[in-house]
């Protein structure tokens, strides 16, 4: 069953299109990584899925129902971001109690154990917590709610390395015990990629790539050698990144659909083929120019 279905989803704020004709489906019980640069529309998408925002055009269905202002969707979706609003008058313990009341599948025992493990104090207030502690508390609520669709938007903001590790581990353990559909957005792809099954890459409000994370590792290939040889070899190929290195040498990244002939030619021209990591692929695909920041410093 599809948990999320988007068809031509568009969201306009004033004159800007935050989401631009986005179409994809997310299947049940998969962990999907939502990757995109700042301002690419990730948060708008997640808020539309959660039913906070109304689509301008197109269609979005969550659990086969329209998501906007839908009580059933609200009961089965939890959206955690780094600007959570918890009632200021409630202590941390009271927030957990209220969450327990609202979420049918809430695991109070797990919540209490995590609460103690991360050394929270019952009588403290959310607004007095540090940024990292807030994120940690959000994570507890997000995990323990056990919602059929759980969405974490930059969940590790401000967390130190140890807590981030704990978080990923806790997320995975709870997912194995209670499978559910999880959407995870993060700037740190290299940190989350092992947890993911699929990846959804967004650029300027559009879906750019949606595939199993394993395939992303083999999606692109890097090539380097003498500039003229690289240029010759990459002719008629889609170059997604290129950079001059050393004297008269170039490193280029192309889509990895090479023929046997391409391999032969590369060998003949003394070009070295190298793997490209997933997070590098994402950086190259989401950057506006082929040279990245280096292009800014080129003066003609």
């Amino acid at each position: 069953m599809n948990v999320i279905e988007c068809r031509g989803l568009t969201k306009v704020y004033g004159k800007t299109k935050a989401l631009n004709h986005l179409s994809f489906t997310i299947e049940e019980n998969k962990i999907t990584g939502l990757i995109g640069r700042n301002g690419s529309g990730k948060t708008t998408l997640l808020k539309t899925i959660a039913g906070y925002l109304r689509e301008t055009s197109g269609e979005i269905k969550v659990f086969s129902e329209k998501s906007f202002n839908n009580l059933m969707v609200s009961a089965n979706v939890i959206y955690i971001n780094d600007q959570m609003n918890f009632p200021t008058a409630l202590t941390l313990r009271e927030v957990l109690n209220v969450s327990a009341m609202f979420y049918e599948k809430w695991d109070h025992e797990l919540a209490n154990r995590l609460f103690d493990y991360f050394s929270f104090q019952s009588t403290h207030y959310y607004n007095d917590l540090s940024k990292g502690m807030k994120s940690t508390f959000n994570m507890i609520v997000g995990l323990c709610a056990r919602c059929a669709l759980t969405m974490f938007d930059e969940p590790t903001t401000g967390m130190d390395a140890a807590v981030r590790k704990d978080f990923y581990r806790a997320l995975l353990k709870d997912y194995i015990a209670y499978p559910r559909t999880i959407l995870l957005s993060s700037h740190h792809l290299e940190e989350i990629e092992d947890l993911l099954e699929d990846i959804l890459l967004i650029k300027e409000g559009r879906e750019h790539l949606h595939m199993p994370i394993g395939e992303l590792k083999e999606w692109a290939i890097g090539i380097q050698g003498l500039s003229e040889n690289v240029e010759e070899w990459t002719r008629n190929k889609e170059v997604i990144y290129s950079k001059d290195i050393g004297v008269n040498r170039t490193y280029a990244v192309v889509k990895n659909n090479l023929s046997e002939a391409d391999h032969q030619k590369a060998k003949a021209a003394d070009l070295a083929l190298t793997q490209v990591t997933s997070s590098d692929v994402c950086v190259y695909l989401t950057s506006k120019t082929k040279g990245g920041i280096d292009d800014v410093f080129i003066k003609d």
Partner: protein
Amino acid sequence: MILNMDGSKPIYLQIGEWLEREILNGNFGSDQKIYSQYQLAELFTINPATAAKGLTLLAEENILYKKRGLGMFVSPNAKEIIINKRKNQTLKKLVIEIVMESERLDVSKEELIQMINDVKTGEAGE
């Protein structure tokens, strides 16, 4: 035990190789039940689907076999298959690289063999 997480090699391949090592080391005998995808996922903090892909890979190579509803088990000739595979693929590739590198460095064939012999005797001496 920790995988090489430098990102250059797909995780499922690394899982496959790790399982092969476990079998070669004798930690899993023939017809013994091997880790489930969920155990592997927990062990390495990876997605269970990725772990399953690693297991499927070994099943396709007949290193593991599946018992419906019970999980994956080590084939009786698993060790043999792994050793053959490594000889024919991994070792061969390494040898090719060694030969190429020695050519680049103008190391003669005799010299290279001598180097290998030195390493071998060094090992025996320890």
